[in-house]
């Protein structure tokens, strides 16, 4: 196992970089971060639109949410990779494809979390914010969403964790993220499949566990004052 790591660690970490495109763990991390960073505002926007009183705003989003949720992520990857270039005439690279898919998929799920959070907040919060003279968007931004996001933090984190894992689907369109690299390594060494995939599993675990621990820390920090109150 040590020999395995010793031989392939750089390949595992960055793929063929700098000779070829960046790959491996670096690509997986980059892709996850990119997806999280872009999906959060996208999901927030969709979530707010989903609870809008204006049907022209709420319905298209509802349709998008239902559609995306009813299709396997794998299929969405295929669609974006093969279908989109045929329509637009622009060939999208594997990494870009994967990023777009993840943002779309993630955004939709986050939108549902955000929308559910907004709906479950007592009506009095929006009413009292509005009765002070704040506009609807101010009330959302200053009063409703801060509470929604805080209450929804556990769901949001589990969604973000599943985003990290979903980057592995890039394998199917030949994106050289860490799963793809692991498979390559496995083909090269041939006899050590267990070790190779064990290392891969451990890698994903560390990434996801790290993120959820980080979230836990954040949650504790947010709740610290409330805890002081009860003590």
């Amino acid at each position: 196992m040590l020999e395995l790591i010793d031989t392939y660690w750089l390949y595992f970490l960055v793929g063929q970089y700098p000779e070829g495109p960046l790959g491996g763990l670096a690509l997986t991390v980059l892709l996850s971060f990119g997806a999280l960073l872009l999906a959060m505002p996208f999901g927030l926007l969709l979530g707010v639109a989903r609870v809008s009183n204006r049907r022209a705003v709420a319905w298209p989003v509802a349709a998008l949410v239902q559609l995306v949720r009813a299709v396997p992520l794998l299929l969405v990857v295929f669609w974006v990779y093969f279908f989109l270039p045929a329509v637009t005439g622009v060939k999208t690279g594997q990494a870009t494809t994967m990023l777009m898919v993840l943002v779309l998929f993630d955004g939709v799920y986050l939108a549902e979390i955000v929308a559910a959070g907004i709906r479950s907040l007592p009506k009095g919060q929006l009413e009292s914010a509005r009765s002070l003279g704040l506009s609807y968007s101010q009330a959302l931004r200053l009063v409703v969403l801060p509470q929604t996001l805080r209450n929804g933090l556990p769901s949001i984190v589990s969604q973000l964790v599943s985003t990290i894992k979903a980057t592995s689907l890039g394998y199917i369109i030949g994106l050289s993220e860490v799963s793809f690299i692991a498979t390559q390594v496995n083909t090269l060494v041939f006899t050590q499949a267990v070790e190779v995939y064990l290392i891969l599993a451990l890698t994903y675990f560390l990434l996801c566990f790290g993120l959820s621990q980080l979230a836990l820390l954040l949650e504790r920090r947010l709740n610290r004052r409330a805890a002081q109150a009860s003590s």
Partner: protein
Amino acid sequence: MIVLDKVNKFYGDYHALVDVSERVGKNEVVVVCGPSGSGKSTLIRTLNRLEEIDGGSIAIDGRDIHEKGVDVDALRAGIGFVFQHFNLFPHLTVLENCTLAPVKLKRATPAEAREYAMQLLERVGLAHKRDAYPNELSGGQQQRVAIARALAMRPPIMLFDEPTSALDPEMVGEVLQVMRSLAIEGMTMVCVTHEMGFAREVADRIVFMSEGRILERATPEEFFTNPQTPRAQQFLADRRRD
């Protein structure tokens, strides 16, 4: 100052407000009472457009507030509203609750807003709780903060929608005390409340509602000693039994 003319409101087939007409003058304190489901809360909520109306008109300072094109946010900024369930913002401290709207609506610089909010918190007896969060306060304290939060916008009118109904009995007094002091200072107030002692002592006028209509309007003295309608008599008898 506030003029309601034949206001009607429906919830589907249910006629919640029936031809309600009333005037509230400047510096006047009007208490709206009546059995539950009589439309009191609906009525007071139409005064800052938390509820829309289906007929008639409501004018504040001569301006029809339910007209198309009225700036609802500006209207509400000039009317303090106190809710039954306080509705403080739980993610903000007491002081932040009071400064949020004045600062975000550019009525004051952050420093000015803090200073005025502290004056108000002092006034409701909660200056020492400035950095506390709402869930660290009792119901009575939360409601007093809610009043300070509303006052922070310096509104010429204050509306109270059953401000003591959600409180434990021992906390009712502290909230009424704050309301009383506002009334004495000449604040224009409309209060929906079941606190008949408060009504008797503070109100300039009592409006009695039943089934969406105003059945009686009278001075407290007249209303309590000589209610005209059987419903009002019944209502007062029920109150006394409590």
